[in-house]
């Protein structure tokens, strides 16, 4: 059941539901019809942002293990040159977005909800935009899949929908894949970067999908796009028709959060990804349209992930629009190119209005996961009131949770109970907080509970190790004690059985035995010595 919010944008007039659409659409529980605020940033074509004088590249821009820095300050780098090396299977390198000199490798402010500093590489650009070595596989169909996957990995491609999970890992599902889904839903308010990318680069996206389809041998290809983007749907349908790929472009209803991976899969296939599994476990891989374009750029043109389309929008921006910007460009610079702030700007957000996080300053770079810079003016935040258990939150929860129960247990810090209520199935979409008549910042409570539980688990692992070590130590002491006791007992027994003094024969044999022992010991020592010298 979807709750209608006044001023919805779901426009039934736009006829993007192709009658030949063979895929039957399904529904997911809950969700919201939201005011999209999308038209304000789609009137201009994507503009290539100016080359900035400096670029700041956080080393960690992906989910997974951090990568190792392989450049030093003062070093000349060329466009596309690798700056870090992936340290683990789930990791991704970053590349120089343009040519220039490395001016610093140090901790700087990065886009993070807590305003953290993290290791960054700073490049003073030289304006020449000179490419380094380029590797590409235009004839990908005659290329080994492992080579392609490795190339995508080395090109630093991560999911561009916002999660930034390494794409190469998703392209190695370890089982056969039935369905490859391209996610062009873009359900979050304000964000239009995928919409504009589909309108302007549909053919590249479809080609990128063809590469992924080839790598996965997926039988079915579906491109899901919300029906509030008729231009993108038309462009993608035309591009599919032109290509060899047998993909279907499906218009899906505009209900937030259809773009959530699990929600999109439910809508298109009626399958629910089990709680503790990945889509690949049910034979589905889902990729963002921007990621498909990045795969295309890397495989066909040899360009690693060094730029992306980003929406700079909101009531606080003078000329909202989309930019093709180099990763590492300062947000302040992009805002300036969008005409700067309007008076009365209050809040700056990376991402959309539902899930994006607020930033304290704009003096930070955009990263691979930055799909939107949103500047809001009037942000009304009514004070929170007590929960009246009205149940509106569970009516809109796409994960079918009981948000008010989760809130209750988060407030009480009952972290066992909150997991019984499946806290970790919460996707933090914010629907519950949006409809809450008491204006309780529910998602904040869930994030708090999740972080606390993770901390507790880390502590538990630590204390488990300490306990094991302690037990082992105790056991060792016990063992040594026992061994010592045994030795003493033996010795005692030996002494007891010792022949009486005066038994010359026995004494002689004892001496001989002692001499033999000494000799053996000496020999052993010399061999060890020799070994060491050797």
């Amino acid at each position, binding site marked *: 059941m979807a709750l209608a*919010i006044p001023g919805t944008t779901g426009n039934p007039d736009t006829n993007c539901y192709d009658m030949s659409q063979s895929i039957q659409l399904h529904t*997911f*529980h809950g969700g919201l019809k939201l005011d999209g605020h999308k038209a304000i940033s789609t009137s201009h074509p994507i503009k290539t942002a100016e080359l900035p004088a400096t670029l700041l590249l956080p080393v960690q821009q992906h989910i997974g293990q951090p990568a190792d820095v392989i450049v030093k300050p003062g070093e000349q780098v060329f466009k596309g040159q690798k700056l870090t090396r992936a340290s683990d299977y789930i990791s991704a390198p970053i590349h120089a977005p343009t040519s220039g000199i490395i001016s610093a490798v140090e901790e700087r402010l990065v886009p993070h*909800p807590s305003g953290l500093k993290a290791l960054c590489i700073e490049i003073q650009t030289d304006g020449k935009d000179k490419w380094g070595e380029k590797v590409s596989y235009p004839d990908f169909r005659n290329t080994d899949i492992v080579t392609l996957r490795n190339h995508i990995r080395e090109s630093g491609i991560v999911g561009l929908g916002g999660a930034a999970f390494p794409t190469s890992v998703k392209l190695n599902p370890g089982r056969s894949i039935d369905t490859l889904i391209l996610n062009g839903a873009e359900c979050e*308010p304000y964000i239009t970067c995928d919409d504009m990318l589909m309108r302007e680069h549909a053919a590249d996206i479809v080609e990128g999908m063809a590469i992924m389809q080839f790598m996965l041998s997926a039988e079915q290809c579906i491109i899901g796009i919300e029906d509030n983007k008729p231009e993108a749907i038309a462009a993608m349908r035309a591009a599919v028709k032109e290509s060899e790929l047998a993909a279907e472009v499906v218009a899906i209803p505009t209900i937030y959060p259809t773009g959530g991976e*699990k929600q999109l899969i*439910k809508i298109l296939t009626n399958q*629910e990804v*089990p*709680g503790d*599994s990945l889509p690949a476990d049910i034979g589905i891989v889902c990729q963002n349209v921007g990621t498909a374009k990045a795969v295309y750029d890397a495989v066909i043109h040899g360009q690693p992930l060094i730029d992306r389309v980003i929406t700079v929008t909101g009531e606080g921006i003078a000329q909202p629009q989309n930019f093709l910007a180099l990763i590492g460009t300062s947000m*302040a610079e992009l805002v300036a190119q969008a005409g700067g*702030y309007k008076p009365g*700007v*209050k*809040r*700056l*957000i990376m991402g959309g*209005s*539902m*899930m*994006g*996080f*607020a*930033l*304290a*300053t*704009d003096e930070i770079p955009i990263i691979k996961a930055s799909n939107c810079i949103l500047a*809001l003016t009037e*942000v009304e*935040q*009514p*004070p929170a*009131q*007590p929960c*009246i*258990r*009205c*149940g509106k939150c*569970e009516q809109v929860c796409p*994960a*079918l*949770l*009981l948000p*008010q*129960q989760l809130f209750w247990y988060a407030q009480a810090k009952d972290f066992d109970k909150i997991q019984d*209520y*499946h806290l970790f*199935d919460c996707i*933090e979409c*914010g629907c519950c*907080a949006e*409809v*809450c*008549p*008491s*204006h309780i*910042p529910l*998602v*904040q409570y869930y994030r708090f509970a999740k972080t606390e539980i993770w901390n507790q688990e880390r502590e538990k692992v630590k204390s488990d190790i300490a306990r094991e070590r302690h037990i082992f130590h105790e056991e060792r002491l016990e063992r040594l004690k026992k061994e010592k006791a045994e030795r003493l007992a033996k010795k005692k027994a030996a002494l007891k059985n010792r022949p009486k003094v005066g038994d010359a024969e026995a004494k002689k044999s004892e001496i001989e035995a002692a001499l033999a022992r000494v000799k053996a010991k000496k020999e052993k020592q010399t061999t060890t010595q020799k070994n060491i010298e050797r």
Partner: protein
Amino acid sequence: MQFDTQTSPHLAGENSVAAMMRQVLYALVPGTLALIWFFGWGVLINLVLATIFATALEALVMVLRKRPVKAALGDYSAVVTAWLLAVTMPPLSPWWLTLIAVFFAIVVAKHLYGGLGYNPFNPAMVGYVVCLISFPVQMTSWLAPSGLAEHSVGFLASLQTILTGQLPASLSWDAITMATPLDNLRTETSLGKTLSEIRAEPLYGSLAGQGWEWAANFFFLGGFWLLYKKIITWHVPVALIVSLGVMAALFSLGNPDNFPPPTFHIFSGGAILGAFFIATDPVSGATSPRGRIVFGAGVGVLTYIIRTWGGYPDGIAFAVLLMNMAAPTIDYYTKPRVFGHKPE
């Protein structure tokens, strides 16, 4: 440039507790007007008195609890409680009876348990039941619906009666009050009359009691408004009315002379008001959709049992309070299936 850092979502929704409570008040208007039409000015005077008492007590408790008074009054929850009490109390109840009911509702049932959102029992029903048990005579002195009474009570007479507890000299209690249909039916069947004989009396209308059935119809209208505005869901009202109807149907089919039909039960007493306005109280009720069905059905069945075999003519208030006690357990056993998980 420095920006504020709140967590997502960043656009506040338009919903608010005050807006929801206001809708409940709007929805109560038609039924209340019908009550005033049939039972006179006393209903309105009660309503005004209860509202004043509730607002004053709410403010007083908030001051004592050192909490913001304005926010509490601004959510209209005390007014809703007052209004629900006013339409369930007899129209000429003395002022102190209303005060006691409101006191127990607002101070005891609501604020002693922690205020809005924390009360395990429906405040209005606690106030009502305390008065019903303590002052059974006053609480069952309902006026006869207009058209049946020998004398009607005017505005000033009503005001005087409520404030002094004394009727004007020209009126007598016997002349203006009358047993409610539920009460009357109970007495008469216990005297051995058959239902068709009883229903022939002028007290009864086409569905249930004269006047009563019309008040119920108008509360029904208000209930539909609440459903339409999505303030309540269909689960509680439907479950309550269906279960009450099914119980009535089972017994009246078996013995139509002694057990009234479903329509009588549904349109008598507080059934409709209870189904849409009282049992749907989110704070003290069950919260999951399935839980709400169980909750509503429980109220319906208990209401029938209390009406038919219990000591009181109407059972809605007791049924709601009993089910309030069961609500946490119901919630525990009716958790919805989480996305991507098998049913528990």
